[in-house]
């Protein structure tokens, strides 16, 4: 699918930290700042999941955040995509055998894109956001055709 045709809306991202070590979080912010500059595409971090198209989740889910992750996911309006950034959100990573961690994010909420790495480089995160964008455009398209019928 060509991205350009559906380049109709800016993508707003909500960043959710579920017990990450900060490594991925600062790489996400680095992706938004001048060297990598995601904001030139209209991608920006927003303060509330209710404004967001994409959830960017970092970190393994700690037991205290478990309920919060679900709630934030439910608050995000449809159509939405979830990106998991980092090895520990993808599989548990170095924290695989902890008593306080539920493992990976996909055990809690459905995940669309995984960005592996500990931490992934900003380029990888940007690629992940792009994948989510393509997925969202597909979703919007199918919603439109369903409405037309």
């Amino acid at each position, binding site marked *: 699918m060509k991205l350009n045709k559906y380049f109709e809306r800016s993508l707003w991202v909500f960043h959710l930290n579920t017990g990450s*070590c*900060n490594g991925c979080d*600062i790489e996400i912010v680095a992706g938004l*700042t001048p060297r990598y500059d995601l904001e030139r595409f209209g991608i920006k971090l927003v303060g509330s999941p209710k404004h967001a198209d994409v959830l960017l989740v970092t970190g393994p889910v700690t037991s205290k955040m478990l309920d919060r992750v679900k709630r934030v996911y439910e608050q995000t309006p449809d159509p939405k995509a979830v990106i998991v950034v980092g090895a520990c959100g993808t599989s548990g990573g170095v924290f695989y055998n902890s008593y306080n961690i539920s493992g990976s994010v996909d055990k809690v909420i459905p995940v669309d894109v995984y960005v592996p790495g500990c931490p992934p*480089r900003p380029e990888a995160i940007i690629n992940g956001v792009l994948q989510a964008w393509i997925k969202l455009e597909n979703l919007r398209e199918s919603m439109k055709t369903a409405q037309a019928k």
Partner: protein
Amino acid sequence: MNKKTYSIPIGPVHPSLKEPMTFNFEIYGERIEKVNLAPGDNHRGIEFMGRQRNPIQIIYLAERICGICSAAHPFAFCQAVENAAGIEVPERAQYIRVIIAELERIHSHILWAGVAAHELGFDSVLYLSWRAREEVLDLLEYLTGNRINYGIFMIGGVRRDISEEQLPRIRETLEYYKDIYGKIEDIFLNDPTIAFRTKNVGVLTKEDALHLCAVGPTTRASGIKKDVRQDQPYSAYADLNVEAITPDVFSGEVNGDVYDRIIVRLLELVQSIQIIEQCLDNMPSGEIIAEKKLVKLLNQLKKAKGEGVGRVEAPRGECIHYVKLNESELPEVWKARAPTYNNLMTWVPMLIDQQIADIPIVIASIDPCIACMDRVTILNKNNGQKSMLTKKDLHELSVQKTRRITP
């Protein structure tokens, strides 16, 4: 008089917090009357996991205690193990360790400056300072192979050498920071708006700082000359001139407010550049690791018995690791104490009587690192309820433990 307060919960998921942490404020009008902190959202049980891994595996776990302090924690951990097992680190390795630690301080302080500017509403400064930060990340990637989580520390030394050809590249980056430092200082210290928002905001008095055992730039901004690099020099710091920086060097007075914390962090940038230059000039030649073969090293650690402490001045303050080895593959005890743990309670005197709008900058002013700090919570597994331990309970637990371990 009947004063009716209302409460504002902030966190764990909140745009002004990059990490999960819960605050509860009791507000009267616009004034904060009471602050309640509820950490624990970021608790990953790292020490528990560490007790199931061998010391070399723990280095990588220690690195991931916090992605921003990913030199300070392995540095302290390696020192603790070396201390416990009696391993002597080659001199060259000590210098390389110091260079990496100081580069980390530069990146961390610039990162903090950007975040602080963002909290004040100066987003352009956030972008400019993070652009400047990329240079040191490039250098760290050049030297260690990764932007964050460097993986360069090893028990008994470091894993990569700094070669002769790499030196000009390091000096180039240092020159870059010397060039732009004037601009950074001008933006933060001479701007009337920043001064207006930060002077006399979030004051931490010297007494409170001493009373609460604050560490790092937070305590130095209150006028206490406390710096592990000066008080108990470790590694190569013994050869270098490091002095604790207090804000009176720059402004002639100590107020202990947010502005002073900005001064201290900016001056520490210059100090770090000087330290790295001294290291580059005096770098001794020789080995970079005490024992190259990991199997041999592990065997040596397996036979070791004893306790060790590693103290490191992380960008946020003193970081202590304690390790007890007991002739087995796994360490018997590993305890990490991150600087934010000490600085956490300084939020309470800082925030009382401030306005709601000052909360983000005051919280950001100690450079909190929740990922470092969240290490212990008492959790009742059956009903998921957290229980608060009073002094009496703690005493009871302590007595029980004494009875348990006494044969």
